């Protein structure tokens, strides 16, 4: 348990003292440790149920407690998988000759530490610190070695992220002022039905988190930042970073939403999500640059996540559970598929030496493997069986039907069709034979294998959805005397 927290932090400190090449060996060792620790924690929770872990030996509310449950460990494991893939890819992909690359590993490890902190956090202020760690590390990674355009994108990202954080912090301050505790479970225990101040706090926090998650129409900062970052960084940002703020919003909503929320707020957030699906997919279809296509596709896929709010507000318990499972699967499958897509896009760009979609002509002969990974990931985004994306949409479809909110079904179906449109557009460009150049660069085999593994994982998720979901629904022991478990 403690290993999960301190390995990324220790590796961040150590790798700052090394250069890129030596940091790479150190980091690969660290990734191995992280994967093993995450797996053992996952099995511990799958076997014995969730628990609270009190940090520094002080119980909440005086100290900070971590909430280790099925959902948290599943996301910890997902993070280990995606971050390891991106880390291995980055080790080969990034040019070790550049002086600034030495800062990649420390930022990468701080990002990982922040992500784990958010998945396990149960304290509102601690979650804020986790968010800050993630945002600043992400901004640093976008800006790393970049020139004017990258710096502009990074600065825009920084301002959006800071504004979101401040709105969230304002909400935390209001809640603390009223309830005198920062523990989320503690607040959920005392909050009543009509608390206008607490409702305003929830609204502020959700607004801030929606900005950080790039919910339409607050998504303006995402495509430039995710598009211009190096491919392994884009994969981390789209796969994991935007999920962290959504995760906090979802936890807040599920704990407090039934008393502090309203039907208007829930339907409004759902409508914005639906608009994001349609607008993001349409924009993705229109982009001239390959990575912008993938980035706008993220805007669209994030939209689906916000269907959680209407589908869990004032509905029967089994319907709400169905929606939660669907959204969780959507988070996992999108993280895997989008990371695969960005890494494959990086390979394609490396190969044709151009970032434009129409420069891809003829690449299907030379890089069929990367193109195939891109397509497999695309199949999951479209939501075709047997992918994880399909399983997620199927559950959401059922939840919409069961709660009588049929209008979301149209969004789910139309979103799939639009996703197919922008993925096939890339394919069409790559099969065109009228390209003047047949001079392609062949990236190393490692770079081609990693997106393939991720895409296959996204594909296989649909087949193993049942056991994955059973871990999420594990009972959570709210034991009074919480003891530390150290795998």
């Amino acid at each position: 348990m403690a290993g999960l927290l301190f390995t990324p932090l220790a590796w961040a400190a150590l790798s700052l003292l090394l250069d890129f090449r030596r940091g790479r060996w150190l980091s690969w060792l660290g990734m191995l440790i992280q994967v093993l620790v995450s797996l053992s924690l996952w099995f511990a929770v799958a076997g014995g149920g969730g628990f609270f872990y009190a940090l520094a030996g002080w119980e909440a509310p005086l100290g900070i407690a971590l909430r280790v449950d099925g959902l948290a460990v599943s996301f910890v494991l997902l993070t280990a998988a995606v971050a390891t893939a991106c880390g291995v890819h980055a080790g080969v992909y990034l040019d070790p000759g550049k002086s600034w690359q030495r800062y990649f590993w420390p930022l990468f490890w701080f990002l990982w530490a922040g992500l784990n902190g958010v998945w396990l956090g149960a304290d509102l202020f601690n979650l804020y610190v986790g968010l800050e760690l993630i945002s600043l590390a992400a901004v640093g990674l976008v800006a790393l070695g970049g020139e004017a355009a990258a710096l502009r994108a990074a600065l825009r990202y920084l301002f959006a992220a800071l504004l979101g954080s401040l709105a969230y912090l304002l909400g935390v301050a209001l809640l603390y002022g009223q309830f005198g505790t920062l523990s989320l479970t503690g607040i959920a225990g005392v909050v009543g039905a009509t608390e206008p101040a607490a409702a305003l706090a929830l609204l502020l926090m959700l607004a801030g988190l929606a900005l950080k998650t790039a919910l339409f129409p607050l998504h303006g900062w995402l495509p430039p930042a995710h598009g211009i970052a190096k491919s392994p960084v884009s994969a981390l940002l789209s796969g994991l970073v935007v999920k962290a703020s959504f995760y906090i919003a979802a936890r807040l909503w599920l704990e407090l939403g039934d008393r502090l929320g309203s039907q208007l707020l829930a339907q409004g957030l759902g409508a914005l999500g639906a608009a994001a699906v349609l607008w993001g997919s349409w924009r993705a279809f229109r982009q001239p640059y390959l990575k912008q296509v993938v980035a706008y596709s993220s805007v669209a896929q994030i939209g689906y996540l916000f269907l959680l709010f209407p589908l869990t507000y004032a509905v029967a318990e089994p319907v709400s559970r169905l929606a939660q499972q669907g959204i969780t699967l959507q988070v996992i499958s999108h993280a895997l598929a989008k990371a695969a897509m960005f890494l494959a896009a990086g390979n394609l760009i490396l190969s044709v030496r151009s970032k434009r979609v129409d420069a891809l002509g003829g690449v299907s002969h030379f890089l069929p493997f990367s193109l195939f990974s891109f397509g497999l990931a695309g199949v999951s985004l479209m939501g075709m069986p047997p992918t994880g994306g399909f399983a997620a949409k199927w559950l959401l479809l059922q939840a919409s039907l069961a709660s009588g909110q049929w209008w979301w079904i149209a969004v789910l179906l139309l979103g799939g069709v639009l996703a197919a449109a922008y993925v096939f557009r890339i394919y069409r460009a790559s099969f065109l034979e009228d390209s003047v150049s047949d001079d392609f660069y062949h990236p190393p085999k490692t770079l081609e294998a990693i997106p393939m593994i991720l895409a296959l994982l996204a594909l296989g998720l649909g087949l193993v959805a049942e056991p994955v979901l059973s871990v999420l629904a594990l009972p959570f022991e709210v034991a009074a005397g919480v003891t530390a478990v150290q795998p």
Partner: protein
Amino acid sequence: MRRLLVLVSLAACTALTIALALAVLVAAESAVVSELPQQLAASLGRSGVEHPTTAVLLNFRSYDTLLEIGVLVIAGMSGISLASTRSLEDPALRSSDVLLYALQRWFVPLMLLLAAYLLWAGSHRPGGAFQAGAVLAATGVLMRLGGLPMAFIRPGVLLRLGLVLGFAVFLLVAIASALAGEAFLAYPPGMAGGLILAIETVLTLSIGMILLALFVAAPVSAEHEPEEGGGS
């Protein structure tokens, strides 16, 4: 169009302020009585320090502080990692005023003394590593503006070591306590006071270094790398 936008945003800000003020009033009236102050007072004796703020920052909620130091390290790192940024390394931006130099000979030792005092005061009255680090950084900024040479602040292994020193020591204590069988970050009984002072001392150095590095040490680099994304 532009005026309309300004007016609308002004109205939105005013509405938000009024809503916030109302919310604070309502919250103050219906505030739940919390047992947190009593808990804090009861546990203060075992925290190793006498001032509640320091106890909260470095003992009860030390995990938050550890991560906040991480955020500062990231900021410092991102600052020095940015390529091709003009900085005060440029000699044209450096002044060499005789009067300033004379003033500095008085100010710098005094400010260093103040930083040390703030650090020491943290255990029983307001003060501590963050304030002391800020004063330390201000001293460095003053020295830099006055034209004193500061070779250690150039991006190199010494600077990186300085950036990460406080964080690393804090983390080392945390790991040592976890390995010794306590919870992550739990100080061994009886040693809390000494350890907190040691951590605060290295934190002061690192915080000063990070803030100063952000001011001074952006490197000038002429290397280039092609960009992948497109303009938006």
